[in-house]
């Protein structure tokens, strides 16, 4: 018998027993609050005072290292939440971008740019994907972390761009050159082979970050982002459909089979698009809080917040990735813009927060906790990258991996007070949350917000002043009246220990596309999850969908949030949803996949294509 076996086995058994005990309690109808009352669960929700019930950290492999029960302790609310740096354009690129892949110069792209001549790039960006060193906790609490990031930072720089005006759509066109300068030595996880997805731009698909279009070390890849509205070459020639505007996007690695480790290691960043309506200036257009230069606290009130959760090795204090997990990875440290539980100082006025969850597997339901466990309401203005028809007052916003929510939070008259962004959605394992939402103050406080900034003018729209009778303040939703060319069903399931879609695994990169969408057509897709054990954030590239029904019910006419245009469908337990897509303008390879990136890497993906023929496969 080997030297560690007995000890570990005993611990394995203890852990199994703990999980079983807890499952039994839950099956018996005990909620988390009951356990709290019974003294079996601490208010932090993490530890139970006696062995045999502990659910944390419930490594979903069913096998977790008792030697490393959790990350080292860190002191919350010490570090300032960084405002994300804005990436500056460069004057030119060397070598100059070409329509055909510049293979001789080391470009990894294999397909020519399809819209380069129509929308010649007006501005150029260049970033290097490389290792960097960052501090995620207060100095001395965790050692410096080696991450992989865009220009060596994580989250990566914020790209702020504008759609061209409706009369001159080409003015928005940009080109981003990415270079792969990642090292061979990965420090424990990460594959130095990458492909960058602009989630969820209306991007010609050779530039979109298809999982199989990856580049090796030393190569570069030119991404052409025309930043045009869908419909530009089809339903709304010359302008595009303004109702298709997107404003909050992000970019991230999408390397097939290795996305989870690469994004967890830091390869994700943010992308904002303004236009003549959502202008970035609170004195014009929709009058949403000003972006300013993104840095100056006296003029910049449009704040991008990137949430993710991570685990750190208890012995080395270094970022840890669970290599053999296929169910989903949960962290016990919550980061905002690269710092664990930071602090943000605001002035007593309105702010636009852009919330993004980069995963890997956790779902959030964010509340704003005020003094004395009060819950502060706020205004949700978007679902994913897309504005709703008007702001909706809410007490919380739920978003799974890759979803975005833009909100307006009004701190007017709140000077001197402290608030927290608090996640109250209980989730003990990577398969998804159990649906339980804990009480105010009992969740995880992720960001501390102190209203102690100077009084500054606020010319932004107060959503409370928009008349209830006014149906549309932003853009109207597009109609969903056109007949679908085809209805396809995608069943997300598990078989033989693997994730599957319609009983099949993700194919080979070289396989023929599993489905072919005809360009400029409408399709209805049915997403099915027959399981009570798993939830999946389902993401389609390139186009947003509108939800026609969930479990047979049409979204309520007043339910703007469920009717909102989205690119991630949160497919919950035993759910079936029908969604409506228009696929317009561009062609190329396209994936549909689960955005729990651990599921995604383990085959929960279908590789398809948009072309001018289409096919009639109803269950690809």
């Amino acid at each position, binding site marked *: *018998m*080997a*030297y*560690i*076996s007995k000890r*570990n*086995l005993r611990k*394995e058994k203890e852990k*199994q027993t703990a999980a079983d005990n807890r499952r039994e309690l839950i099956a018996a109808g005990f909620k988390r609050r009951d356990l709290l009352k019974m003294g079996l669960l601490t208010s932090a929700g993490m530890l139970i005072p006696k062995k045999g019930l502990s659910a944390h950290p419930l490594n*979903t*492999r*069913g*096998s977790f*290292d008792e*030697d490393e029960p959790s990350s*080292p302790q860190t002191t919350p609310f010490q570090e300032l939440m960084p405002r994300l740096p804005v990436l500056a354009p460069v004057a030119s690129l060397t070598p100059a971008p070409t329509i055909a892949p510049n*293979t001789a110069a080391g470009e*990894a792209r*294999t397909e020519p740019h399809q819209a380069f001549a129509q929308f010649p790039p007006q501005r150029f960006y260049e970033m290097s994907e490389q290792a960097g060193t960052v501090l995620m906790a207060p100095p*001395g609490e*965790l*050692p410096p972390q080696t991450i992989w990031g865009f220009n060596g930072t994580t989250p990566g720089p914020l790209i702020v761009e504008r759609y061209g005006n409706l009369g001159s759509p080409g003015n928005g066109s940009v080109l981003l050159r990415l270079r792969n300068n990642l090292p*061979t*030595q*990965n*420090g*424990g*996880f990460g*594959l130095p082979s990458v492909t960058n997805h602009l989630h969820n731009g209306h991007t010609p698909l050779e530039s979109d970050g298809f999982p*199989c*279009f*990856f580049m*090796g*070390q030393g*190569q570069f890849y030119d991404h052409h982002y025309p930043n045009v509205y869908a419909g530009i070459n089809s339903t709304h020639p010359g302008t595009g459909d303004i109702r298709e505007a997107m404003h909050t996007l992000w970019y991230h690695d999408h390397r097939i*089979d*290795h996305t989870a480790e690469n994004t967890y290691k830091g390869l994700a960043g943010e992308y904002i698009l303004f236009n003549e309506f959502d202008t970035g200036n609170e004195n014009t257009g929709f009058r949403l809080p000003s972006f300013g230069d993104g840095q100056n606290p006296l003029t910049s009130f449009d704040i991008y917040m990137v949430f993710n959760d991570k685990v750190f*090795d208890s*012995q*080395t*204090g*270094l970022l*840890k990735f669970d*290599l*053999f*997990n*296929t169910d989903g990875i949960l962290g016990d440290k919550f980061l905002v813009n690269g710092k664990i539980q930071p602090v943000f100082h605001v002035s007593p006025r309105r702010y636009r927060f852009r919330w993004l969850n980069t995963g890997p597997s956790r779902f959030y339901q964010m509340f704003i906790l005020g003094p004395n466990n009060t819950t502060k309401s706020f205004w949700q203005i978007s679902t994913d990258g897309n504005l709703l028809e008007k702001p909706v007052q809410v007490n919380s916003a739920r978003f799974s991996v890759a979803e975005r929510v833009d909100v307006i939070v009004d701190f007017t008259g709140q000077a001197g007070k402290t608030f927290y962004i608090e996640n109250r959605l209980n989730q003990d*394992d990577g398969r998804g949350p159990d649906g339980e939402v804990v009480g105010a103050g009992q969740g995880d406080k992720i960001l501390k917000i102190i209203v102690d900034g100077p009084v500054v003018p606020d010319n932004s729209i107060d959503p409370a002043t928009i008349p209830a009778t006014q149906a549309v303040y932003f853009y109207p939703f597009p109609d969903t009246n056109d007949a679908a060319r085809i209805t396809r069903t995608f069943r997300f399931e598990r*078989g*033989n*220990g*693997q994730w599957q879609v319609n009983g099949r695994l993700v194919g*080979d*990169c*070289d*396989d023929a596309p599993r489905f072919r969408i005809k360009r400029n057509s409408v399709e209805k897709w049915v997403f099915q999850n027959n399981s009570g*054990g798993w939830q999946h954030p389902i993401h389609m590239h390139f186009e947003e969908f509108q939800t026609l029904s969930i479990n047979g019910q049409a979204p309520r006419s007043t339910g703007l949030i469920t009717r909102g245009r989205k690119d991630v469908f949160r497919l919950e337990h035993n759910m079936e949803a029908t969604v409506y897509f228009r696929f317009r303008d561009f062609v190329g390879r396209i994936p549909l996949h689960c955005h729990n990136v651990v599921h995604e*890497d*383990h*085959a929960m993906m279908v590789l398809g294509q948009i072309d001018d023929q289409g096919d009639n496969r109803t269950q690809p």
Partner: protein
Amino acid sequence: MTDSKRRNLVAALGAAPFVLPMLTAAQSVGTGSKFKVIPSRERIRDRYFPNLSLTTHEGRTVRFYDDLVKDKIVVFNMFYAKCEGICSPVTRNLVRVQKLLGDRMGKDIFIYSFSLKPKDDTVPAMKHYAQMHKVKPGWLFLTGEPDDMELLRRKLGFVDPDPEVDKDLSNHIGVIKFGNEPLERWGGCPGMKSPDSIVEAISWIDWPKNQTSLKAKGGTR
């Protein structure tokens, strides 16, 4: 840390735990840090690769980490000799993968199939299974103490979080995992994928100089 130094450290830890505080102090990060500097490769070994004693289908006794994993590119899957259903196609797939890997098999790439029914999978039973599938050198079928095999299965992530589903052994057979131990590149894929695409997935964790040579098809990606 060099290999010999690391071995010394392992030996010291195994033989004399009281040495640990001294080593810890010497290894700590800066003054007063509570953290140790341990190469990530060692942390991966400690976390996932218990150095268990296993028996091969040829009757040899081997150590899991020292003899099977260290310094190698490895492919893991689970099996049991009397398995029908999904076992046969996965094993047949791996036979074709073995063929595609050519002379790399047994040189720097190894396939290891771990028994899910160690009581039944005796050396003769495994040997018969290996011969039936015309398994060549570089591919080992492995058994051991039932508790050890169970630990190994869990460490390598061949588990389902639902205990009922976990009991169905066929759920652990459809998956293969692979990795490049010194380069710390690990991955997994369905065992039912085509042999070509399994080999392609393995090529992604191959030594940098070989990044293209494993692939059945060309291309610079």
